[in-house]
Every structure is written in C-alpha cells, then in structure tokens.
C-alpha cells in the first residue's frame, strides 16, 4: 500500500514538473509540492521578512504532521520515494551494518536545520542547499529533464527513417528543443551523493541530513498515530534490522521523532506485536520522544548559521548589486529581497519556453548561487510567456499577467556601434530590428546611411536582439540592467506609465523617426532601404530605404 502511495506521489510530482511549461493553465499550481514544504516557506518568510501567500500551503503539512506524525517522509516525499525505490536496485547486495555513531549522526539534520534558520534570521537563504523538494526539483530541471529530452530525441532519430518511409509524418517531423543548463553536472553529483550515502545506511539522507525531515521530526512525537509494541516482545531485534529509519529502539521502544509510520516493522515482527493505534495521550513523555541535541550543540549550530550567513553575504558582489551585467527574469523582486526569497528550486528555469533562464554560478556572488538569470545571448525572453512567475513557489518572481509582465522591464538594449555590422561595416543587416517584438529598434538615415538605433523608452530588455545578433562573439547589441523595474508590490504597468515607457507595439515608431528625427526635410527624397530611387543619373541619389534602389 505504502509503495503504491509513494509511487503515486512521485508520479504526481513528475507530472506537475512536466506541466510547468509555456502551456501551463493559470489555475494549475504546478509548484504545489514546493508550496507544501513548510521549511521552504518558513525560511523564505524569515529571510525575506515578507509574508508569502503561497507559503500558507505549508500549514497543511504541519497540521497533518501534528495529527499523524512524520508520515510525509514515508508516503509523500518524492525524494524519499526515489531513495526507497533505488534501494533494492543499488544496495541489495551490500551488507549494511548499523552505523556505530548512529545517535550522533542523527543530530546532524538538526544542525543543518538550525544553520538554515540562523542564516535566515540574518536574511540569508541557505535552505536551497539541502531542502529535499527544492533539491529534487533542481535535479529534475538541470539533470533529468535535459537527459529525458535528449533520450526522446535519440529515440525519435532512431525511428525517423522508418516513420518517413511509412509516411508517419507526425513522428518523422517530431523533435524537441534540447534544454540545457549550467550546473547540470554539479547538481547530478550532489544528487548522486545523496543516493550513494544510502549505501552506508538505508535512507541515510532522511535519517541524518534532511532539514525538512528534521523540522517534521520536531512535530512528529505529537502525532496521534504512534508505534506501540506489545509487552510480550522478546526483543528479537528483527524490527530494528528492518526499520529504514533506525527508529525502532531496543526492547520495544520507539524513537518517535524518527518514526515515519512506514510500518515496515509490522511486517517484520514474527509475533505480530507491533501496532499503530491512535494514541490517547496527547504528549508522550519518555526518552524516545526527546531530540538529543544539547543546548551547547544548539548554540554552536545557530552561531554557525549566523556566521555562514554573514560570510556568504560579505563579498563584493553584495556591494556591486545593480552594477553588474546581471539580468533577472521579469517580475523578480528587488535584488536584496529576491536573493532572500528565491529558494533555487529551478522551476522557473524548467518552465522557461526559450531556455534563457539559467542558474547563476558566480554572477550574483555566493549569496546568489543558482538563482535564475537571463542568458540573453543564448536565448531571449518570450513576449507571450509569463510562466516563470506562475510557477515560483515563493513569488521571488511575481506571478504577473502578460500585460504586467511586458511592463516589468528587465533592462535596456545598448547598441555597440564599433561592432555593429551596419554601423561599422555598412552591411545590410536588420536582424535586431526585425526580431524586436516592441518596435524598439528602428532605422533612421544618418549621414546618408540607414542605421539601427534603440528607442530606450520602448525597450523592455527581452533580449531577442542580443540573442540573434549575427556578430561573432559578444553581441553588438547587449541588454544592460539599466532602467530595470523591480517592484516588491504594486503595478508594473502603472510604474512604466509613470516613467513614460511604452511597450505597446506601435506601428508609428518608424514614422516617428522619419518625422521627428530632424530628417523630415530630406524625407521626400529618401527611398526606403532595399529600394532604389527612380533612375536619375548624375545627381548623387539620396539613400533609399534598405532593399530599395
């Protein structure tokens, strides 16, 4: 039964992950697992000092844990499910002896939790490093998703000749854009380490490291479903051997904080003495429900968290905020709040239709590790897409309507005349102009030649120009963060209006240039590019628009 529930939960997690894409309907919370995780919500609220509506979902899990104990780990957690499912595959032949230092190692997860809390207390988010849901979502995004698409494409390539021959054109023409991310290998290594540690003890991660498990285990002893062992117990030790969490203690005792209600012990007991009845006693006493962490340990861990948080923050990157070439997704909170609120789950990067969202490595300092940025030379921000905010569980990227998102200006394109093919070499290039969805790039005639220029008040920094500029190496038109709008609350539309920005695609922009550029006098004689003026040999013909003669 448990395996079935686990499999279902893992499947649901995977399906929701897959649905986090351009086509995601507004009503579907694809990030629901991340919202349910109270650790992510609490850490983001504590670090960000702002209430986060979506974090309210975490109350559901807290309430359920208060009722039933730490069942989440055994039934719902997708990472727990993966560890359980991989266990017999990878470690069947390994004789795992109980770790000698079991009791001490168990503290570790509380240390992790306290470090996370300590850092959050001084406004630094560390929760992303080891929170299981964020970590798994990130692993899905950076590793499994690209690998899956790669495999699908390989398969399609293999059947393509056959499909072509049979006229199955739907298959023959099918191919998916390969998603790619920085940090895939690092992410894989972290995930592999977590899986590999199970070789030392089953669910090593859950027992000793998981901070969400630690948080839930604090509540777990209050749960009313509690393991009880009949007084006839001969202490054969079979349940202790079977328990994946090391929760079964000597002589029928139960470490309630560790017990995840998986009931593996029930099946293992030859005397059928183990039950999980509804407890009458609200707060159990006894040594087994205690968290064995000393006050000194607690203080060390908290101080460690504060110290780590402090050091993570104290890099020149913090002082350089806003001065670096770093473009955040549209709707991202002001940088400081953004760094504190983003949990680095990678869901925005997964859902990004153009794949421009990439994890920061060093671009935003240590504090900004794995936060999303736009790699605009690689791909642009699609005008018709607002999915990154829709799927952000902590709303570090605000969920915006398409119109609002359009006005969430992320930067301004800067044209570099020294490398622009038109400005520097008189080539007939127009790509930035033709690709610009906002008509922010127009041509005007300057000293007899048609030249592209940027209208900053029409540019919202989407980066199509930078992505597609055919200049080799650095683009001749680069989006700089200059003029970005980052609002913690309120309307981007209103703010953009206030700043006299206009992103409504305006048919009149070209005319605006011709009539108000001071070139109007020569306009009548001008011919648009690509055309030639009517033949009039002799007189130096005024320059026609490109393509005309």
């Amino acid at each position, binding site marked *: 039964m448990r395996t079935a529930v686990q499999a279902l939960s893992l499947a649901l997690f995977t399906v929701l992950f897959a649905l986090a894409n351009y086509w995601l309907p507004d009503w579907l919370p694809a990030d629901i697992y991340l919202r349910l995780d109270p650790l992510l919500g609490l850490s983001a609220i504590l670090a960000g000092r702002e209430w986060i509506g979506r974090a309210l979902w975490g109350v559901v899990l807290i309430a359920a844990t208060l009722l039933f104990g730490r069942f989440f780990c055994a039934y719902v957690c997708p990472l727990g499910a993966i560890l359980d499912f991989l266990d017999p595959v990878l470690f069947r032949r390994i004789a795992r002896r109980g770790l000698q230092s079991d009791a001490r190692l168990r503290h570790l997860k509380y240390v992790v939790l306290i470090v996370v809390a300590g850092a959050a207390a001084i406004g630094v988010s560390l929760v992303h490093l080891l929170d299981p849901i964020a970590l798994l979502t990130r692993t899905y995004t950076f590793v499994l998703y690209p690998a899956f698409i790669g495999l699908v494409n390989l398969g399609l390539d293999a059947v393509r000749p056959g499909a072509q021959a049979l006229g199955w054109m739907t298959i023959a023409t099918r191919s998916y*854009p390969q998603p790619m991310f920085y940090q895939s290998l690092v992410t894989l290594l972290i995930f592999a380490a977590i899986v590999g540690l199970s070789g030392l003890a089953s669910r090593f991660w859950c027992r000793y490291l998981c901070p969400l498990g630690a948080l839930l285990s604090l509540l777990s002893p209050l749960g009313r479903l509690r393991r009880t062992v009949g007084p006839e117990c001969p202490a054969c030790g079979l349940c202790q051997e079977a328990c994946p969490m090391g929760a079964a203690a000597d002589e029928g005792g139960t470490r309630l904080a560790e017990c995840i209600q998986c009931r593996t012990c029930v099946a293992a007991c030859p005397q059928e003495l183990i039950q999980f009845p509804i407890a009458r006693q609200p707060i159990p006493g006894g040594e087994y429900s205690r968290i064995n962490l000393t006050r000194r340990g607690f203080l060390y861990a908290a101080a460690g968290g504060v110290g780590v948080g402090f050091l993570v923050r104290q890099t020149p990157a913090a002082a350089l905020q806003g001065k670096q070439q770093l473009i955040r997704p549209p709707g991202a909170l002001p940088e400081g709040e953004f760094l504190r609120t983003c949990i680095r789950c990678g869901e925005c990067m997964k859902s990004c239709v153009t794949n421009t969202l990439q994890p920061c490595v060093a671009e935003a300092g240590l504090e900004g590790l794995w936060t999303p940025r736009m790699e605009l030379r690689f791909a642009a921000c699609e005008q018709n897409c607002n999915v990154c905010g829709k799927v952000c569980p902590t709303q570090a990227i605000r969920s915006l309507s398409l119109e609002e998102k359009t006005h969430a200006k992320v930067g301004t394109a800067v044209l570099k005349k020294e490398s622009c093919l038109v400005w520097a070499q008189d080539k*007939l290039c127009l790509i930035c102009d033709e690709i610009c969805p906002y*008509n922010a790039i127009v041509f005007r005639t300057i000293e007899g030649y048609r030249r592209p220029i940027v209208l900053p008040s029409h540019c919202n920094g989407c980066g199509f120009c930078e992505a597609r500029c055919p200049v080799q190496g650095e683009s001749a038109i680069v989006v700089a963060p200059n003029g970005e709008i980052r609002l913690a609350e309120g309307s981007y539309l209103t703010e953009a209006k206030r700043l006299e920005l206009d992103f409504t695609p305006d048919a009149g922009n070209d*005319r605006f240039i011709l009539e108000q550029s001071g070139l109007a006098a020569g306009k009548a004689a001008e011919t648009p*590019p*690509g*055309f030639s003026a009517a033949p009039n040999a002799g007189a130096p013909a005024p320059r026609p628009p490109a393509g005309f003669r």
Partner: protein
Amino acid sequence: MTIDGHGITRRDLLKGAAAGAAVGLTGLPDAVLAAADPDLVVVTGDPAGATRKAIEALGGMSRFVQKGQRVVLKPNMSFASGPDRASNTHPQVVATVAQACMEAGAERVMVLDNPLQTAEVCFQRSGIPDACKSLKGVYVQMVTDRKFFREIKVPQGKVLDRVEVIKEVLDSPVLISLPQAKSHSTTGISMGIKGLMGLIWDRWSFHSRYNINLALADLATVIRPQLTILDATRALVTGGPGGPGEVSKPNLVIAGIDPVAVDAYGVTVAPWYGQQFKGRQVEHLLTAHQRGLGKIDLDQLRIAKATV
C-alpha cells in the same frame, strides 16, 4: 523543385502545363478577365475565396501537383502573431492551398518554415497549425533543428556557393511558396524570393557575410518553387518584416509560376513606407531578374484579374 537547372525548367513546366491550362481556362468563370494562359492571376477577395479562385484561374492545382506527389508549402509563420499583424501568411490562405493539394492527389503536404521567434509560440499564435489541423495528410512543422537540413551546392551562385536547405524541400517534387506581402527594413519588401530564406539553416550569414540582395538571387537559383501565391489580403507596409507596423488591406491574392513576376506585382499593390515603388526598384528582385529568374516588368506580363 528544381535543383541547379538539371531538372524541369520554368519553360518546360509552362509548355507541359499548357494543355492542362487550356482545359482549365475553358471552365473559367466570367469574373476572370482571362488573358489566355496568364503569367499572373490577381484576385480580389477574402483570403480563402481569393486563394481558391487564384488556383482555379491558373488551371487548378492538378496542373502543379500530380497524384502521389509530396508537396511542401512555405508560408511565413516566423512570427508569434496572428493575421492582423500581417507578419505571417493568413492561415486561411495556407489551409486553402493545402486542401487543394490534397484534393489534387498529393501524398502529403508539409507546411514548413524555420521561424525567427520562439517556435512553440509561433506555432500557437500564427494560427496556421490550427487552420490545417482538420486536413488529413497536411502537417505543419517548425523546422528548428539542423538535422532536418542538408547542404547543397549553388552552382550559379555569385556570392553563395553552398547552402543548407530543409531536406523535405530538396526531396519533394513540388514546392509552393505562400509569402505574406510585407515591408522589410533591409530588402525593402519581403515576398516570395525573400521568403526562401525561411527554408535554409544559416539565414544570419545573409546579413553578416553576404550582400543579402545578391545572396537572395543566388538562393533563388537553387530553390525554385513551382508556384508562388502571394498573400496580399493584408500588407504590412511599415515595420516589416516582424511588425508591428501599419497594415493596409489590398485584399489581393496574386499567383503565378514566375516568382519574380509575382513579387514585382506585389510591390505595386501598396505604398511601402509611404512611397510607391516598382519591381525594378527592389534590388533583390532586379538582381533575380537579371539572372534570368523571371520577368520584372508588369507590361510584359499577361495578367488575369478577378474578384470574388
């Protein structure tokens, strides 16, 4: 389609089709001011109706598509916008031609373009896949992966010596070009000849390495559509090729075998950037004409007009 001149030339095709055309023309409705065997057919009307009439007036699709042949249609569907923006071919024009091809007995019809903007969004917003969804044997593909392209030589190329073209185009006997009439801030206008750039892999080099007007004429020597049907039901007269820009409504569909002639007529149907031009004033068309790829002067063309 014809590669490097070793296949069927335009002249051969015209001869071969003459009989068929004659049959087709006898059945022409009165609305067509029929020039015998017209070079161009110009129909005023709504997208679907005008397209249907234009095909009819050229002698029916069976003149171009034989039973069991594979057909490629090349519309503009490069931009994530609907027909009102006039950056893409009207979905009804594409669907009408696709249906006519299937009715003529085509084995299948592939509607292909290598989009400029995000393929997934172009797919959704152009409306073309939707319009073709109910047509059996018609497939719409945004060709964005290099594996679907194959390099060919350009023997008559002046600047372009080789180019990677969508394989399906190279392997299909029939290519029908379905350009949207629009302005273009480098080539003046973008119609049939310019639209060929949507069938190649490295379009960027046309801007960065070559003179685009010469490269387009080179490209037109190796990719030779059997038929061009220009969608000028709407014309993007400024802000092209992507728009947004001013959209005028000539309500015309212009069809012909000669790709230069169709474009040359298209140049005259609207003022571009507020000025009237002739085909000869468009550099890439003039270059293509001088290479012998088609007629450019309208007074040398037999033009049949109709209204639906």
